């Protein structure tokens, strides 16, 4: 019960995420919600290593891309369902994260951040030249039922729910939501656990962490591997949703920066940060595109960039900082009222 009380906000949000797609019958809105969930998912992943363990990554697109490519290749070439593909992708992402970062944590601060950027850029180059995975042309995904026989096609059908076919838009949305919920719960549980405490101690002071028996390298490596796994799952959902991937859509710095953006905008080191940041980012994005008549003029991004500058200049802790402030002032008023 205590836990329920602490995560009251999460329950309210969950209700909204179920209610709004059912109430609003618009593909545009459904698409935005799917985007929100996918980027919030990877944002949660990024938050583990950067928000909790304090190691800035500018290269999470690497693991996002590995997930997208692995599940897509397994589906297209071997006709294996993305459910298995995403686990395989997660596993490969963990192996890569482990191998790359095994000796990387001796780099501190920005030096580490630039190293993560390099890893993603290297993968981007490799995948854009690797002909087996389509090289520069990328891979366009075939509808799942054409590849896996027996996969049901009708929306709301019995197993259509689980086919991960984006043409059944609502089932796809709710599947994404369910997976996001699992990710959220895992991250929230980690934060409250010994591991979460150790990550934060490392973030706050490396020296103190060591003095109380924490091996910083191992805990950072753990954060990185978990983070890579979740990012890869996000990548799988992205591929299934977008129905097309190539190296420059999944691996570039601009994609890594979206994960940074939604999390820091919402609140770094806060489990609600990525989801709130993502909601704001993509609903504003939709709004702005509608208002300015499409993305070609760049006006939507100008307004958007200016908003980001404005938020950071007024509330450094992100939207969650504003939420906290409102909550405190409400609590203060209540006390005065009593």
């Amino acid at each position, binding site marked *: 019960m205590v836990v329920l009380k602490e995560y009251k906000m999460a329950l309210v949000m969950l209700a909204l995420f179920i209610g709004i797609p059912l109430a609003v019958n618009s593909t545009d809105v459904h698409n935005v919600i799917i985007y929100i969930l996918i980027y919030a998912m990877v944002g949660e992943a990024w938050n583990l290593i950067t928000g909790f363990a304090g190691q800035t990554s500018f290269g999470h697109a690497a693991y996002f891309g590995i997930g997208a490519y692995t599940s897509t290749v397994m589906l297209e070439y071997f006709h294996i369902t993305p459910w298995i593909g995403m686990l395989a992708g997660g596993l490969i992402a963990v192996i890569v994260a482990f191998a790359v970062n095994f000796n990387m944590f001796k780099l501190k601060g920005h030096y580490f951040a630039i190293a993560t950027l390099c890893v993603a850029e290297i993968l981007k180059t490799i995948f854009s030249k690797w002909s087996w995975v389509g090289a520069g042309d990328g891979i366009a995904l075939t509808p799942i039922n054409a590849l896996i026989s027996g996969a049901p096609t009708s929306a709301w059908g019995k197993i259509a729910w689980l086919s991960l076919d984006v043409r059944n838009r609502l089932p796809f949305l709710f599947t994404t939501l369910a997976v996001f919920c699992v990710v959220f719960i895992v991250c929230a549980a980690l934060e409250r*656990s010994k591991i979460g405490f150790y990550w934060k101690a490392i973030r*706050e002071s490396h*020296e103190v962490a060591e*003095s*109380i*028996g*924490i091996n910083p390298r191992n805990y950072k490596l753990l954060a990185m591997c978990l983070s890579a796994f979740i990012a890869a799952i996000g990548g799988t959902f992205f591929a299934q949703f977008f129905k097309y991937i190539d190296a420059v859509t999944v691996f570039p710095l601009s994609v890594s920066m979206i994960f940074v953006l939604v999390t820091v905008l919402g609140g770094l080191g806060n489990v609600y940060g990525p989801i709130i940041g993502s909601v704001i980012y993509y609903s504003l994005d939709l709004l702005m595109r509608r208002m300015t008549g499409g993305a070609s003029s760049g006006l939507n991004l100008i307004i958007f960039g200016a908003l980001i500058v404005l938020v950071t200049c007024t509330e450094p802790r992100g939207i969650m900082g504003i939420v906290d402030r409102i909550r405190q002032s409400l609590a203060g008023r209540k006390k005065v009222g009593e």
Partner: protein
Amino acid sequence: MAELLKIENITKKFGNLVANEDVSFTVNEHEIVSLIGPNGAGKTTLFNSISGYYPPTSGKVYFKGQDITGKPAYEICRLGITRTFQVVQTLKEMTVEENVMTGAFLHTRSRKQAQRDAAEILERTGLTEKKNIRGGSLTIIDKKRVEIARALATRPQLLMLDECMAGLNQTEIKDVMELCVRLKEEGLSLLVVEHIMEAIMPISDRIVVLNAGKKIAEGLPQEIVNNEEVIKAYLGDRYNAESK
């Protein structure tokens, strides 16, 4: 009394600079040993060598008979030596309780258990009322208390305090002195680096004096205040006059 920590001929060089030269001493169980010396005598360097922050250039450190020279700091902590820092390092974004819980997690995976352990230590260090305050917004004395509490939560056998009284006022110093004595009575050993003589003399069982990296004296507090070389090197005329 059994020997707990044994330092044998520790030398530490940074390039040409010799920070510690051939220092040896021991700390026994249930004992408060103080490490004193003027600024730049190499006290903190020695602390860092013992607690694993960097390996000594030569010499050995034994803990309960086991050679721990050059082991990483986190392993040394797990063996039973926990240190604090000269410049207080509170985990700023975490509350007092969370600070202490982080230490307590060394011996448990369970959050509840860590919370119980922390509660007990908060009580002992007089921090219970402040447990929900963020580390970053504490006063100096409370930050130092938190640092000691966090170290205690790892249940060390040897607690190493690096100038934990610097910057405190008379009453606060007295608080810390009492805490040290209480910890000793509870069975801990303490190795204390300190500047403030008045505070350290009455609570120390033994004192080791460093000057320019070398050990120049070791003995009971009374012997140290009367030691000519120590007076000359460190205490100066003022203390000499007072003690007479």
